[in-house]
């Protein structure tokens, strides 16, 4: 045969899980060296979705950047722009009114629920097959997510990349009809989310496929630099909303679910319990939105409105994947000098090299699904 150089590795069968694959959650290339059904060694390749966002930020002004940055982690867009805007407000020392802070947290928590529903649905597709029980779970999760997206469309105008946050406040106000719609959404979603959490966590085949698979020990989690539900599954109690509170999170009352073993089962259960906690926060917000104005600066009349003083700042928020951080260096003009994004999926994905060797092929798909990478975030 012409070019079969890979197979000359003595004893191992080399299989390519290429960039186009039904269950790698995006464009990701893995080369697996198999012996029978066990994986001996892997090589991974990234960068298929690199769009050069950090280079682009050396050309656009601060006011033009939030809609572009939302396309980073495309499953929960407003958390990206929230982090960037908070970092800029930290340099300029702008005070944000309490009402706009409440609205920002409302949108962020609703998108956290929608992102976790997508993670659960696609995990069902991986485990159960695209034609089978997994497809039923996938379509149920997306049916619930449609209700959340309808609320976002009513609030802002688009379903997804809403461009709701601006430097100094939010763009749209929340009127009484929208509040009634959100109340109706909470009433519909609450029993359904608890139902799904109950059903999936006690399913016999799900437990057989995910218990004791991909165990991250506490020592590995501390050394690796991961964050989010992945290290909370191993028992480490770190959440940016509680340890370094931002916006108005310190006024609300919610818990942080923790896991014990650190296997794939614990991570999925933690995500489903976080859904219920986010719904609690949304309920508390709706009960008491304060009155006030939604912006605290002059309205945007020209693209060069924001001119921060010289300096640098770092600000991090809790996205559904972990700690998302923005580091901005400004030199006094309307265009940033350097902007660096600390992507949570990139650090979480580096655990793949320690977890995959020694498992079956079927387990590798389960482990990748429970790490929940989003490749817009990994490659930027």
């Amino acid at each position: 045969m012409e070019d079969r150089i890979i197979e000359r590795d003595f004893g191992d069968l080399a299989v390519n899980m290429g960039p186009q694959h039904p269950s790698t959650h995006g464009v990701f290339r893995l080369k697996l060296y198999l012996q029978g059904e066990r994986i001996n060694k892997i090589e991974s390749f990234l960068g298929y979705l690199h769009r050069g966002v950090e280079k682009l930020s050396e050309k656009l002004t601060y006011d033009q950047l939030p809609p572009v940055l939302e396309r980073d982690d495309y499953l929960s867009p407003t958390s990206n722009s929230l982090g960037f805007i908070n970092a800029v407000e930290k340099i300029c020392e702008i005070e944000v009114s309490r009402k706009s802070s409440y609205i920002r947290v409302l949108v962020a928590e609703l998108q956290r629920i929608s992102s976790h529903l997508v993670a659960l649905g696609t995990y069902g597709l991986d485990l159960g097959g695209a034609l089978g029980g997994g497809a039923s779970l996938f379509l149920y999760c997306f049916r619930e997510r449609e209700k959340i997206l309808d609320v976002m469309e009513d609030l802002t105008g688009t379903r997804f990349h809403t461009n709701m946050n601006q430097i100094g406040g939010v763009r749209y106000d929340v009127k009484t009809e929208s509040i009634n719609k959100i109340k109706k959404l909470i009433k519909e979603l609450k029993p359904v989310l608890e139902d799904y959490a109950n059903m999936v966590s006690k399913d016999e085949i799900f437990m057989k496929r995910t218990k004791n698979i991909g165990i991250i020990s506490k020592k590995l989690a501390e050394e690796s630099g991961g964050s989010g539900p992945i290290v909370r599954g191993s028992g480490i109690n770190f959440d940016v909303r509680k340890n370094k509170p931002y916006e108005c999170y310190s006024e609300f009352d919610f818990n942080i679910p923790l896991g014990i073993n650190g296997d794939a089962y614990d991570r999925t259960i933690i995500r489903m319990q976080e859904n219920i906690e986010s719904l609690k926060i949304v309920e508390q917000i709706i009960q008491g939105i304060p009155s006030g104005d939604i912006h605290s600066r002059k309205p945007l009349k020209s693209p060069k409105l924001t001119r921060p003083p010289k300096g640098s700042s770092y600000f991090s928020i809790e996205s559904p994947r972990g700690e998302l951080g923005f580091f901005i260096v400004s030199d006094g003009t309307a265009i940033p000098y350097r902007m660096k994004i600390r992507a949570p999926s990139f650090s979480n994905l580096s655990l793949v090299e320690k977890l995959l060797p020694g498992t079956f092929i079927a387990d590798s798909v389960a482990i990748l699904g429970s790490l929940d990478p989003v490749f817009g975030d990994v490659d930027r």
Partner: protein
Amino acid sequence: MKLIRILKNIYRNLFFTLGNITKPAVTIKYPEERRVFPDKLRIGTFGLTSNEETGEENCIACKLCEKVCPSQIIEIDIEKRDGRGWAKKFNLDLQSCIQCELCVQVCPVDAIIMMKEAAKPSISRNDFYLTKTKMMRNAEKYEASWAKGSILQESHTPNLEDKK
């Protein structure tokens, strides 16, 4: 014991999916049924408005929307006569629009607005490259969205009465 737990799980999962058969389907059967668009919809095309009484166009070609667009899709040529500016050429590439509505927010005279009509699919690229005549015709044909430049800027000005 374990066997009874397994049987209970199988029973519960099976009857959850079976119980879904009686509920109605959630698909909207396009094109016989259509979805109800909300007020603030911004996934559609653009339109250039004209003054209601005199009938002349509102756009003064100040080029603010051209400067603020993050994807740089607008091209404007200005000509001055009769004491104000007029737009000689106003091109907008609808394929690269990211629907952020910054151009609507910035306009001082409420000239450019978004319409409440989804862009129709077509097979030629010219249908997505909007010129000035096309946009002025859009503003007369379709219904406008809620957002206008003056409304957005007025709601953003601080120290306003609360609107609940």
